[in-house]
């Protein structure tokens, strides 16, 4: 009966949308490193903890105030709730129940409630035994103010801060990464302290002016000396004791420098990934951005243009020199291998990246990055650079949307320039928007004044605009002359006066920027107003 109820609840929870929504909400709030909610929650918790610590410190010297008591209770409530919620989101117990139940059904054996409970409890214990969960629990203790010894657990409340601050967490990570070296050092230090304490105790015990009356005094002197503090309240008087002091001082210098060097090395190693994670955090804040793989001459040129237009982008390159340069220019940059899945995922290829440019000088790498990117994200736009003709098709096969050959492009422009220098200058001027003349597309949206209108009725000449043509994938237009295939669509050059525009068509217009803008807004306005009315 009980087991039936349990299975029923498990299936109910599995099907319940609101349960899942609630769980996702709390996951975003407490644990999801990419969520905004967590950032706000962390900041709020830091403020709470600091306030509670200040209150507890105030209470050490003053009478406990009533208001302080209420506040402490409120904080306690928040902490307890947080503790329990974290336990809740840590595992999905109902999934374990379902899994066990289905297994039992499949194997045609009895569904044993005990095994399920054992698994669920084991999973829960895994959480309650984790480092942070223990700190969370201990941090609750100082709230019990009537027992003043529990105040010492304020320290754990301070430790709790680690949870909410990434830099503090990073410090812990750095120490953890050098666990072996630090442990070796600790053993060595303990050994030294032991020898020195015993020796000084043997030499100086009960000597009037040296102040060593027991083994603890000897230990205290050793630590004070080893740490190069040397208060001077205990000083060795015998020759033997002084030799011990000399020996200890020399050793302590070595131990301290060993300790410092371990820390520096650990931070040095961690620095790269630290910087990287900062970059990832920064990227997470953008609504959309472009990933540039390869920061050579081409990459620099693109970055310069994007920066000028305040477009967000990130540079990924293996070479330290290029990354250094990118950083000097104030760009976001990651020094890593862009062909690795992990690097691209961290950079946000599956989340907010809108385009990726594979433009290193090596075609092999470009193909590989293109393939990786397409594999990770089906919809992202990939523009790749091919340095050799024969690799163009390979890049398209790998999933690139556009492939560009630097030498071909340059050769093409050179040819245009050799043929028609003035006309070419003018066109490249428009394309690069050097003057206020621009070539732009105006979309014919449904129910706009352009929809179902003949070209002849647009009086573009009056508006000082030149219509070059219409881009469309509408098959209605196929009967017209002068069509050129442009990818999956057609470009209708110089369309006749009776050409009827359809929704989805794009007019290619040459004219002054504000002229085009004015035309576009006039064509869009009635439609938007109409929408507002309905």
């Amino acid at each position, binding site marked *: 009966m009980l087991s039936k109820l349990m299975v029923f609840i498990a299936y109910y929870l599995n099907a319940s949308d609101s349960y899942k929504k609630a769980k996702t909400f709390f996951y975003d709030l407490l644990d999801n490193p990419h969520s905004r909610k967590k950032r706000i929650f962390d900041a709020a918790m830091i403020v709470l903890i600091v306030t509670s610590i200040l209150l507890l410190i105030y209470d050490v010297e003053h009478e406990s105030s009533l208001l302080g008591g209420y506040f402490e209770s409120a904080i306690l409530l928040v902490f307890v709730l947080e503790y329990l919620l974290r336990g809740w989101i840590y595992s999905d117990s109902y999934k374990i129940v379902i899994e066990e139940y289905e297994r039992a059904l499949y194997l045609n054996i009895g569904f044993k409630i005990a095994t399920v409970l054992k698994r669920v409890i084991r999973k829960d214990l895994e959480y309650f035994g984790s480092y942070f969960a223990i700190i969370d629990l201990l941090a609750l203790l100082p709230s019990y103010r009537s027992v003043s010894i529990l105040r010492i657990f304020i320290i754990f409340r301070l430790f709790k801060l680690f949870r909410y601050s990434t830099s503090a967490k990073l410090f812990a990570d750095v120490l953890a990464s050098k666990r072996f070296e630090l442990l070796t050092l600790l053993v060595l230090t303990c050994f030294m302290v032991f020898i020195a304490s015993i020796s000084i105790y043997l030499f100086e015990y009960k000597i009037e002016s040296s102040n060593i009356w027991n083994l603890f005094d000897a230990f205290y002197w050793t630590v004070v000396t080893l740490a190069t503090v040397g208060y001077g309240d205990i000083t060795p008087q015998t020759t033997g004791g002084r030799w011990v002091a000399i020996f200890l001082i020399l050793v302590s210098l070595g131990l301290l420098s060993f300790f410092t060097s371990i820390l520096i090395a650990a931070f040095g190693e961690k620095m790269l990934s630290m910087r990287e994670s900062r970059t990832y955090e920064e990227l997470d804040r953008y609504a959309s951005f*472009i990933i540039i793989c390869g920061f*050579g*001459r*081409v990459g*620099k*040129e*693109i970055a*310069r*243009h*994007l920066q000028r*237009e305040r*477009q967000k982008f990130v540079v990924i390159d293996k070479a330290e020199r290029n990354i250094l340069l990118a950083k000097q220019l104030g760009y976001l940059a990651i020094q890593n291998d862009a062909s690795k899945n992990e690097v691209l995922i961290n950079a946000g290829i599956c989340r907010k990246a809108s385009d990726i*440019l594979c433009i290193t000088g090596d075609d092999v790498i470009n193909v590989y990055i293109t393939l990786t990117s397409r594999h990770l994200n089906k919809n992202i736009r990939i*523009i790749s*650079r091919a340095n050799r003709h024969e690799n163009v098709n390979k890049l398209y096969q790998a999933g690139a949307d*556009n492939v*560009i050959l*630097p*030498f*071909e*492009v*340059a*050769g*093409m*422009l*050179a*040819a*245009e*320039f*050799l*043929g*028609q*220098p*003035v*006309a*070419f*200058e*003018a*066109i490249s001027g428009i*394309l690069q928007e050097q003057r206020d*003349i621009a070539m732009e*597309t105006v979309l014919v949206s449904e129910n706009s004044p352009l929809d179902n209108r003949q070209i002849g009725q647009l009086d573009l*000449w009056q508006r000082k605009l*030149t219509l*070059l043509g219409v*881009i469309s994938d509408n098959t209605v237009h196929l009967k017209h*002359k*002068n069509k*050129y*295939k442009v*990818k999956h669509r057609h*470009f209708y*050059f*110089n369309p006749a006066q009776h050409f009827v525009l359809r929704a989805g068509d*794009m007019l*290619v217009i*040459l*004219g*002054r920027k504000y*002229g085009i803008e004015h035309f576009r807004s006039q064509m869009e306005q009635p439609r938007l107003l109409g929408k507002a009315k309905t």
Partner: protein
Amino acid sequence: MKNIAVFGYNRLSFEAINRIDPENHIIKVYDYKSTNIDLALEKGINAAMIEFRSDDDLKAIGIGSSVDTLFCCLDEDSENVFLTLSARALDKNLQIIAIIENPEAAEKLLAAGANKIIDPYQICGRRIHDMLKRPDITDLFDHTVFGRNDLNLAEVMVPENSFLQDVYVSQLELSTHYNLILVGIINKQISDQMHFVAEEVDRKLNPGDILVILGPSREIRAFKKDVNDEFCNI
């Protein structure tokens, strides 16, 4: 017929030569490396060996006389600078276009007398940026004007006594008569700069003006023929 001398045979100059209309241009490739010359000849390109450091050799191939345009496409920036300097000294009016490898070389080449600098990496960067910003327009140009499709830009000069003389731009109506679009006009008397039709007030055409038109090559040829035909009137 325009006479173009291309110095240096490589991927870039090959692409450029391939795209120049052979009917209106005489193209010859020169290089000082025999391997490059062999490669060019293999592809059926008119090529010859030359020592570009010698002024006499340059004169012998027509620089200072028959060559209208010089395309410096040698591998080293220093070589291109040297060639530009030599050629400019021989001919003040020669049109010189040069390729650069290192961006620092641009100023040096301009100082040496080049008319136009082409930086392949810069162009490629701009192009990718264009693709990001205006994919439709970039695609359109890649497939038509710059691509293999037959849609070209052309410059047509208004000769003396043609039917174009004293015609207002608004009366021209090239789009109905010829299936051509008039993009801009260069008024040679004022400057070499092109004025877009779209931004201009209506004006009369004078002999010597250059019309910049866009359209299929057949239409361009027909238009050029009519323009140069004194008796044609439409």
